[in-house]
């Protein structure tokens, strides 16, 4: 028998009481660990999203999205301004158009479906009413042409900008085209090519000119694969819009400069352009994750405080309960050091058992806990996102909304990972509370006067 064995023995003296303390302590340790895991994983995800957000800034004429909306396209002067803005490392300009059956001899490989039909009808109606000013309305209705699917044409300085993956455009046959050329050349989407029996070297008519197919591309995206890519200058000439650009994608030299560059561009272009950056979108999309991160930090602190309090109060009660016994030990010659040591060992025994159970439990629950924390908050975030998204009805926000949805899906995929650092942090916090919770009450025993044993209660 010595201080250590007495301490351990006292820890299991009343199994029910010690068991309850162990259990409560274990729960707070499990909470600490799983909160730390959730925090670590969420922070990692935030960094990941921010780091991969890319440095692209999209500049569109104010009020324009895709082929929809109103306003004037961007001018050559504006493009020059964008190019000369500090930190802008490269600029890809594009101009899109939609060819109807009168513009080309090609047949669209898209079927209108109910969605496309509704869109085409609304466009045709507007045209019909302008064309037939003063004419009988019934006549207009009967002359309205049956809706036909259109073929989308993208004129771009960099064909890769059409790639849905953000990387290089996949050319399945032939070769890429030079975006700075002004020749009547084109890359044709695989689906459209098949539909019209086009191969490398074939020609087709567009806007009254003969265009040579230089290559066939595939993106795996049905809309893109039914389109045509041409050099920017070619589309500008064919559609008679010299210098016009409907969308600019500017790359910034470093992700740190994105915000700065966006501000600079907004100042330079004023209200003529709508400017969006991936980084800004990413920053907004991670706000809910940041909320979780601070929530989990608060959780760690609260759980640690609760754990410390549980041990502290339990041990203080134990000391009070054993006042007389402590007095007896001192009366028969036990030193303060031995009594304190015995109580520290007792407190540590309980906390170590609790900590081991808590850590094991924490490892088991940290995964599901992280997932539920993240998905709960993401659900509410995407609900609000889709409500606002509905305002931009009409599908042109298409790319945008789908990018955001993709971002949201990514955000829910936070995998809880228990790194050694997090585990060590949890063990460290646990040890700290265990020591505090045991040492403070043990130290209280020093104040118990041995003379109290002679008092009859």
């Amino acid at each position: 028998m010595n201080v250590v064995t007495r301490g351990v023995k006292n820890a299991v003296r009343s199994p029910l009481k010690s068991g309850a303390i162990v259990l409560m302590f274990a729960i707070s340790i499990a909470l600490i660990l799983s909160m730390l895991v959730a925090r670590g994983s969420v922070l990692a995800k935030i960094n990941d999203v921010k780091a991969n957000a890319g440095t692209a800034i999209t500049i569109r004429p104010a009020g324009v999205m895709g082929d929809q909306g109103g306003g004037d396209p961007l001018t050559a002067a504006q493009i020059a301004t964008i190019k000369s803005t500090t930190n802008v490392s490269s600029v890809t300009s594009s101009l899109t158009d939609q060819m109807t059956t009168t513009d080309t001899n090609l047949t669209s490989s898209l079927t209108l479906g109910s969605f496309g039909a509704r869109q085409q009808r609304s466009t045709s109606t507007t045209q019909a009413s302008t064309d037939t000013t003063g004419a009988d309305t019934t006549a207009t209705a009967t002359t309205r042409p049956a809706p036909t699917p259109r073929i989308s044409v993208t004129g771009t300085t960099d064909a890769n900008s059409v790639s849905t993956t953000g990387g290089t455009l996949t050319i399945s046959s032939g070769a890429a085209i030079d975006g700075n050329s002004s020749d009547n050349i084109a890359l044709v989407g695989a689906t459209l090519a098949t539909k019209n029996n086009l191969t490398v070297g074939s020609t087709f008519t567009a806007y009254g000119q003969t265009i040579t197919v230089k290559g066939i591309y595939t993106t795996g995206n049905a809309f893109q694969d039914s389109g045509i890519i041409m050099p920017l200058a070619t589309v500008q000439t064919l559609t008679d819009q010299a210098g016009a650009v409907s969308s600019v994608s500017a790359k910034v030299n470093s992700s740190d400069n994105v915000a700065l560059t966006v501000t600079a561009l907004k100042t330079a272009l004023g209200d003529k352009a709508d400017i969006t950056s991936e980084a800004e979108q990413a920053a907004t999309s991670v706000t809910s994750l940041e909320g979780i991160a601070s929530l989990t930090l608060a959780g760690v602190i609260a759980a640690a405080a609760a754990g410390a309090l549980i041990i502290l109060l339990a041990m203080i009660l134990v000391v009070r309960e054993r006042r007389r016994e402590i007095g007896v030990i001192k009366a028969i010659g036990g030193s303060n050091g031995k009594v304190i040591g015995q109580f520290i060992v007792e407190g540590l025994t309980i906390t170590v058992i609790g900590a081991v159970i808590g850590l094991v439990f924490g490892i088991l629950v940290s995964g599901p806990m992280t997932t539920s924390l993240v998905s709960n908050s993401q659900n509410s975030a995407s609900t609000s996102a889709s409500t606002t998204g509905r305002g931009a009805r009409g599908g042109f926000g298409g790319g945008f909304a789908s990018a955001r949805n993709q971002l949201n899906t990514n955000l829910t995929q936070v995998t809880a990972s228990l790194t050694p650092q997090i585990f060590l942090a949890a063990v460290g916090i646990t040890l700290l509370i265990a020591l505090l919770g045991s040492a403070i009450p043990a130290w209280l025993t020093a104040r118990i006067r041995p003379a109290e044993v002679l008092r009859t209660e």
Partner: protein
Amino acid sequence: MLTVENVSKTFSTPGGQVQALKDVNLSVKTGEFVSIIGKSGSGKSTLLSILGALDNPSTGSIIVDETEINKLSGGNQTQYRAKKIGFVFQQYNLVPNLTALENVMLALEFGGYPSSSRLDRASQLLASVGIEEDQQQRRPSRLSGGQQQRVSIARALANQPAYILADEPTGNLDSATGKKIFDLLHDLSRSQKTTIIVVTHDLEIAGKTDRTFTLKDGKITTK
């Protein structure tokens, strides 16, 4: 030789100052068996706790074998209690989750007794006060009051103390058992030359001791 010189003890309580001992003077010779009697609240326990260095006097001094124990540091007072004093209490005060043997071994540990021979010595001591082998393995709650008091006497004797201080050792026992416990202490004082100071209410017991001090309102009235 134990000498008490001009010892007073004052407690401050929320209700004011309580003077438990007033200028107490006495001396006990080595090997003597003395008793202290007095009404409840007269200061008997207070005096005993000061003799055993469980508490310090407000004024005055206690000299035990040339050492003024009230001047010792806390650590040295603990050593004094461990080696020179054996306590026997009215409520036995055994450590509840330790067996009879372990209770005695605890005192041996504090007295610095080598750990290898603690078990044998504890067992012998318990046997000498009449605790049989199977009773030695029991916890206090499974022993009778008389048996617990025997264990506590064995514990008090563990480090062969020069003094045994007993506060109403028979107070919780029936008269027959009380007499046996008293006889046990009496024999000790004869055989081991241990100085024994016993506080008691029982005048019959007091009558059998070498000397009796009477306390009244914190003062010694007879010698």
